[in-house]
């Protein structure tokens, strides 16, 4: 159990957040760059000091400004995975993995196997690929028997291919290690793939927290007309390798999504951008669009000067962003039955 409340003034902006987490899964801290998410986990790890607040991890009070408790970094037992890996360049992978004083040497073979680094143990970090380096960094943090794992955009410095290679390893961590993981990112893909809980942060404040499904404003900000997302869970039903099309089922039907290979997971989270959704009053035929949902308008929301958000219930909540002109032309109103069209190429997971 983690209970955190932090305040820190950076001059240009300040952080004021508090959250608790019971889960031993992955809690994603998401937000645009400069929103303060990395500062938050740095304060948890002790790498920076809050002006005031308290940090509780599994009944250990690590920081409390009232009683002037400030546990030194090296005693906090927060496994930290940095964006740039930070392996010690003059030590072999094995020595990196076992660097921590109380590292769990007995679990080394198991953890190395799980992370796919067992064959790299005698290599030097300079000879590893970016993805391999990050896997070693994850292993090193896990072997110190941490109480919590903090990951600061661990995929940010990797190219897209390496990201895909590393994602499954991270997704697998919660089932093997019974510890809470805080994961900082601003990538929608990582949120969809990894998060059990999503805490959205902007300008040093928590905007929302909860499950990563449902409708919410994506990682843009309101001013930049961020991508409004509808996220829902579905199970993989079929994969057509010839066309690279995944068929995934949800309570209201099936969706088709493009993917280079069959996803490893049984269930995935699919995301639809509101601006990618077309609203139609009748069910179109002879059309290329594969995903056609029928739904009922639940709410119309003024969004920007010329567009509105049409929130619908199609078994799952789906939002469409359309122009006001079109909304008036179609005479959209709450309760009206509509069809929602999303091209397979616009769906992501």
């Amino acid at each position, binding site marked *: 159990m983690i209970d955190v409340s932090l305040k820190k003034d950076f001059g240009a902006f300040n952080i004021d957040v508090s959250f608790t987490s019971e889960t031993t899964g992955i809690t994603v801290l998401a937000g645009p760059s400069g929103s303060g998410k990395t500062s938050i986990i740095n304060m948890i*790890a002790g790498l920076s000091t809050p002006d005031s607040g308290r940090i509780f991890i599994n009944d250990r009070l690590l920081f409390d400004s009232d009683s002037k408790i400030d546990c030194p970094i090296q005693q906090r037992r927060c496994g930290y995975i940095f964006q740039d890996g*930070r392996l*010690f360049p*003059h030590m072999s992978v094995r020595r990196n993995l076992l*660097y921590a004083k109380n590292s769990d040497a007995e679990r080394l073979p198991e953890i190395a196997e799980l992370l796919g680094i067992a064959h790299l143990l005698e290599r*030097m970090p300079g000879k590893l690929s970016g993805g391999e380096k990050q896997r070693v960094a994850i292993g090193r943090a896990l072997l110190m028997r941490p109480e919590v794992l903090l990951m600061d955009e661990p995929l940010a410095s990797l190219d897209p291919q390496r990201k895909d290679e590393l994602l499954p390893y991270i997704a697998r961590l919660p089932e093997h290690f019974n510890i809470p993981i805080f994961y900082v990112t601003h990538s929608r893909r990582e949120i969809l793939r990894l998060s059990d809980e999503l805490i959205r942060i902007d300008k040093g404040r928590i905007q929302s927290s909860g499950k990563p499904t449902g409708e919410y404003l994506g990682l843009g900000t309101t001013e930049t007309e961020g991508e409004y997302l509808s996220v829902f869970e579905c199970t993989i039903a079929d994969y057509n390798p010839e066309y690279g099309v995944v068929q995934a089922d949800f309570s209201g039907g099936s969706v088709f999504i493009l993917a280079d290979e069959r996803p490893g997971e049984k269930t995935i989270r699919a995301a639809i951008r509101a601006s990618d959704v077309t609203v139609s009053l009748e069910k179109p035929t002879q059309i290329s669009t594969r995903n056609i949902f029928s739904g009922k308008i639940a709410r119309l929301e003024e969004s920007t000067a010329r567009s509105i958000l049409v929130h619908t219930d199609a078994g799952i909540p789906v939002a469409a962003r359309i122009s006001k002109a079109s909304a008036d032309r179609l005479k959209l109103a709450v309760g009206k039955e509509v069809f929602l069209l999303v091209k397979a190429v616009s769906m992501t997971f």
Partner: protein
Amino acid sequence: MTLSAEELDAIWLSIRVALWAVAMGIIPAVLCALLLARCSFKGKTLVDAAIHLPLVVPPVVTGYLLIIALGRNTVLGGFFEAIGLQFAFNWKGAVLASLVMSFPLMVRAIRLSIEAVDTGLESAARTLGAGRLKIFLTITLPLSIPGLITGSVLAFARSLGEFGATITFVSNIPGETQTLPLALYSFTQTPDGEGMAARLCVIAIIISVTALACSEVIARRAAKRISG
């Protein structure tokens, strides 16, 4: 080419003095470099200036200050006398003079090397439970080895060439304090000494170039080990 006993004495004395100066200086130099590179404290500029002083004042001044500081009536002189160390007019004094003169060079090289060590690695080590001493011994120091090598070679070369402070502090006694540069100087002052002076010149160059070459090889190996 055979060397006279006097020349051989000067050569061996020089090498011995230079090696001792490096050996005695290296640990304090690492500590000073660490202090200057990684700590901020009041009076840091003053400490920095004091360390660098021998680099900027005339060597004769340094030698003279050593005489004053280590005279029998001073605290420092009394302390060294109490532990059985006498500097006046013997080779240990030459070591001290070389050490003081070469110390700033050593500190500078090591400091640059420590500053080049990514502090991110140090904070990563801290999150892994390492205390300051462990971080210094396992991360900072091993990664600064190229600077230690460079600093030692610079100090060795500087000690080999040390003249002004040595002759002022411990005079020019053949077999005791007459290092290579001092011998060279004496030969140039003697009639028909030019030949001997020229030979010592060549030898001084050979020793320095050899030291430099060795350090290059060692530094390259160390760098290779660090980067894997």
